[in-house]
């Protein structure tokens, strides 16, 4: 349970990091993203991923178990690999159209953290499903006998 809460905080960090990045891009208009439409599209997609990631972190991991966001929970590995892909796309854009600085390496770090979170989440989810299935199988013979 403690590990799940820690994972939730890490997921919240990753989601907020993408939100901050998208906000900065929208307000500062960097040279390597001259198209305003491109900025809006990027901000929109980043906003969707951020909302989904933050919802998963808060509802499924940080709040008590009686609160659950099932749709988000079933796609959490997609959400966080998507966040990682966004961060790597930003790093690529900086490499091609601008000058890479040390501060830009945070995109790579955030992508790495998001990827690890996605894999851990998937493994935990698979394990939980397996345990639930085993418990159901154990419970069924007992229910058959009056």
């Amino acid at each position: 349970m403690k590990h799940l809460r820690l994972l939730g905080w890490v997921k919240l960090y990753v989601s907020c990091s993408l939100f901050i990045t998208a906000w900065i891009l929208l307000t500062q208009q960097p040279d390597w993203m001259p198209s305003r439409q491109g900025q809006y599209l990027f901000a929109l997609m980043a906003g969707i991923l951020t909302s989904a990631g933050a919802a998963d972190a808060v509802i499924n991991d940080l709040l008590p178990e009686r609160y659950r966001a099932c749709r988000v929970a079933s796609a959490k590995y997609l959400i966080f690999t998507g966040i990682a892909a966004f961060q790597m796309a930003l790093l690529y854009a900086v490499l091609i159209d601008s000058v890479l600085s040390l501060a830009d390496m945070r995109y790579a770090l955030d992508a790495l953290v998001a990827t690890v979170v996605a894999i851990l989440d998937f493994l935990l989810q698979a394990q939980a499903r397996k345990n639930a299935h085993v418990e159901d199988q154990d419970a069924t013979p007992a229910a058959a006998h009056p």
Partner: protein
Amino acid sequence: MSKTRMQLQLRLIRDFLILLGLLPTLVYAATAATGQASVAAELDQIPGLAYAVTFVSSSLGGLAGTLHRMSKHLEPGAAGILHPKVFVAANMLGGWAAGWFSFLTGTQAGTPTLLVQGIVVVSAFGGAAIVERAVDKVLPAKGKKG
């Protein structure tokens, strides 16, 4: 028509549409790979680190595809995965191949930088499925429901 037959036909139509969509990509990639001077010059201008970032992006797309397909086979009551290493390797190889082809295509077509990465990730997600299905015909990595 039985449900199984209909599902099989729908899956074949979907695979065909995916291949049809990838065909122009493959043609462009083949054109790029033949060493046309303008394309070669364009690719030379891309820093080595950008190629590494593209590799990571296609890996992320392949990983998302792998986890997505794996989750369906690991559901309670599902047949499971007979050869997990083959399953993962087929998905990731398909992701890398599709990602690389879409990167070449996007670069040759002068696609905006961020959009190139988006196409790489999406192509890797879909390409993983195609290669995995092709490998599955030769060496079934998934169990069959009994």
